[in-house]
């Protein structure tokens, strides 16, 4: 019996077995989504296959391709058999937008350890960038009847929204990031409100944002002459952008910059003592996080064709924070899962639960006060999630994993390095100014490999 268990376990560790099982599971849930009801359950099961995929031991490239096939082909195709195809795609698009934003906030909160409570402001900046110039709103303050801009220029507006948000991230960050960590939370909280107040009131003296009424009849974007109007079209747009964001975050995380963010998060004083400039490092985190949010803001405005300041409240900022905390600060799979779950909870689960309870109430089965209706209880649910996770599981549902390096490969690199530089650097041979990093070639020190190993032995006894 016990032997059987062990054998099963070894079997399960084999990537090929994992792949077969996972494929079976994926096909099953995809088939369920296509042919059986209720779709939402199958939809979730299909998404869960991606999480399982994350835990398999398949090679990285295989994982990416697999995931790409599931989200780009399997999911839309299987969902298209049902009657609610477009509403599904709408939900999936929303999820994608939130995942990208949560990944952005994760850079700020998870990597750099800066609590930003006004993150939605950058989303608003992106959204207004598109809405103002791709409706006739801009005619109110720019003379000549140039607006709306042609919808083909949407593609240019994506980087524009990204840059505007990044720019404001830097502008806000410059004064704010100098102050101590805890103040940052409250200042960003204030900033989020301020941006909303300004957008809410900037209909006079010059009408820039159309104030509380918001901007309507925003142009639908066009791509090679095809106008994007269906949710499934936006789904693919968001998917493409999300892939870019994921790629960027992963690259940055394991780079010089990502390491500096984490150093600042762990210990600001030690980070500075190791040559990491605090303010600049934090600013970059702020700007990178903000830029993802601004990018998605553009998509949001294009998708909704209407925006007003009520979409950018503090509750939205906290919603994104909940995604990050729930999933796991600094953990990419965690943040993705957290964002999916919270989005589903928000736009699918709670409204459906409310409807169901309302039906029961009208049918006279139960007496249910409308004050308790789940769709109004976001704050309570989010609040409880935040407290519980802070107290009992601060690392989130899926804690971040550290990257392991293969010692043999490292040893090879170390040997290469020694061969190239002659063993060690010597302080004395550096240029006196010491600031030109490229000019600071390591000298030809006298330390040999043998001595190094000698040191190793000695160190081990120490």
């Amino acid at each position, binding site marked *: 019996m016990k032997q059987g268990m062990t054998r099963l376990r070894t079997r399960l560790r084999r990537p090929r077995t994992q792949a077969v099982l996972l494929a079976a599971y994926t096909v099953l849930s995809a088939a369920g989504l296509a042919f059986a009801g209720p779709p939402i359950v199958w939809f979730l099961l299909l998404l869960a296959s991606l999480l399982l995929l994350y835990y398999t031991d398949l090679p990285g490239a295989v994982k990416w391709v697999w995931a790409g096939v599931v989200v780009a082909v399997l999911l839309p195709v299987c969902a298209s058999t049902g009657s609610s195809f477009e509403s599904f795609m709408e939900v999936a698009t929303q999820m994608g937008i939130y995942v990208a934003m949560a990944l952005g906030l994760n850079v700020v909160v998870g990597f750099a350890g800066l609590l930003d409570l006004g993150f939605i402001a950058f989303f608003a900046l992106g959204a207004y960038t598109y809405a103002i110039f791709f409706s006739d709103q801009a005619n109110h303050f720019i003379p000549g009847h140039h607006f709306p801009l042609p919808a083909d220029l949407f593609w240019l507006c994506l980087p524009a929204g990204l840059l505007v948000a990044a720019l404001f991230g830097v502008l806000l960050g410059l004064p704010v990031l100098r102050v101590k960590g805890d103040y940052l939370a409250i200042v960003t909280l204030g900033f989020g409100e301020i941006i909303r107040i300004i957008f809410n009131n900037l209909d006079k003296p010059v009408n820039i944002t159309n104030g509380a009424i918001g901007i309507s009849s925003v142009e639908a974007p066009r791509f090679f002459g095809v106008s994007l109007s269906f949710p499934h079209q936006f789904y693919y747009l968001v998917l493409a952008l999300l892939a870019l964001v994921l790629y960027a975050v992963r690259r940055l995380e394991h780079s*010089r910059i990502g390491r*500096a963010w984490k150093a600042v998060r762990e*210990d600001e004083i030690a980070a500075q003592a190791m040559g990491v400039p605090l303010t600049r490092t934090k600013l970059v985190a702020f700007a990178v996080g903000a830029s993802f949010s601004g990018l998605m803001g553009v998509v949001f405005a294009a998708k909704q064709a209407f925006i007003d300041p009520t979409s950018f409240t503090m509750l939205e900022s906290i919603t994104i924070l909940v995604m990050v905390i729930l999933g796991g600060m600094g953990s990419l799979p965690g943040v993705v899962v957290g964002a999916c779950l919270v989005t589903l909870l928000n736009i699918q689960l709670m409204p459906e639960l409310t409807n169901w309870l309302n039906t029961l109430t009208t049918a006279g089965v139960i007496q249910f006060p409308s004050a308790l209706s789940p769709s109004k209880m976001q704050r309570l649910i989010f609040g409880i999630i935040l407290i519980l996770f802070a107290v009992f599981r601060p690392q989130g549902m899926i804690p971040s994993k550290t990257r392991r390096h293969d010692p043999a490969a490292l040893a090879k690199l170390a040997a290469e390095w020694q061969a190239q530089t002659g063993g060690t650097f010597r302080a004395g041979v550096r240029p006196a100014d010491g600031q030109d990093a490229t000019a600071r070639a390591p000298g030809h020190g006298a330390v040999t490999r043998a001595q190094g190993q000698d040191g190793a032995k000695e160190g081990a006894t120490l």
Partner: protein
Amino acid sequence: MNALEVSGVRKQFGGLVAVDDVHLQVRKGSVTAVIGPNGAGKTTFFNLITGVYQPDQGDIRLEGRSIVGLRPDQVTMLGIARTFQNIRLFADLPVLDNVLIAMHGRLSAGIPGILLGRRKVRHEERQALGEAYWLLEYMGLAPYANEIARNLPYGTQRRLEMVRALATHPKLLLLDEPAAGMSPRETRELTEMIHRIREDFDLTVVLIEHDMKLVMNISEHILVLDYGRPIAEGTPEEIRNNPRVIEAYLGRAAVSGA
């Protein structure tokens, strides 16, 4: 030229003068110790040199260049590295990342290069990994490369702090109580290690230490602080017999009794 010249440095916190009119000349390649009772202002002195605090008065020069007014990361890039009295590793990060972070200022990858995966960036990253691992091998920490720093034994953490400091390519190494919490044997090994890295990396070393045996063994020059003020300076021999030093450490009675 001296590696470090401190002249007339003073630092006040509210009513407390933590460091008062301290002068120090550190010869290139030497080992200098700063000693004194608890609260004598030794760590504040280090914090002034490394730019954590700015002096109210006085000047600090590294190889002739004034470093007053620079931020700590700028000071580090000019060639002063330090360890901390109460170990400040990046505790939740792997050992290797701890060392790589210390190379931050010497690497040049920017966001575009990283996102595009430019060859220069990849090359630089490989070099950095190689050097980091080489340094870990040098200090006998290679087996721990993938460990989370928090999980290392105490003495190993102290050694990792040294590796991290070396990874910044310093000219001047400041060690804040390197032997704190170590057994006599570990302390002996530490002495050898300090000598070795000074040789191998052409370093000038300034250390704060309470372990008098270590101090007397290792240093060529000693500065004694008491209540922020320098009360004695000289070779180990001179310091050992200085009555003011004995008084500061043991109290007046010990002096008159002796």
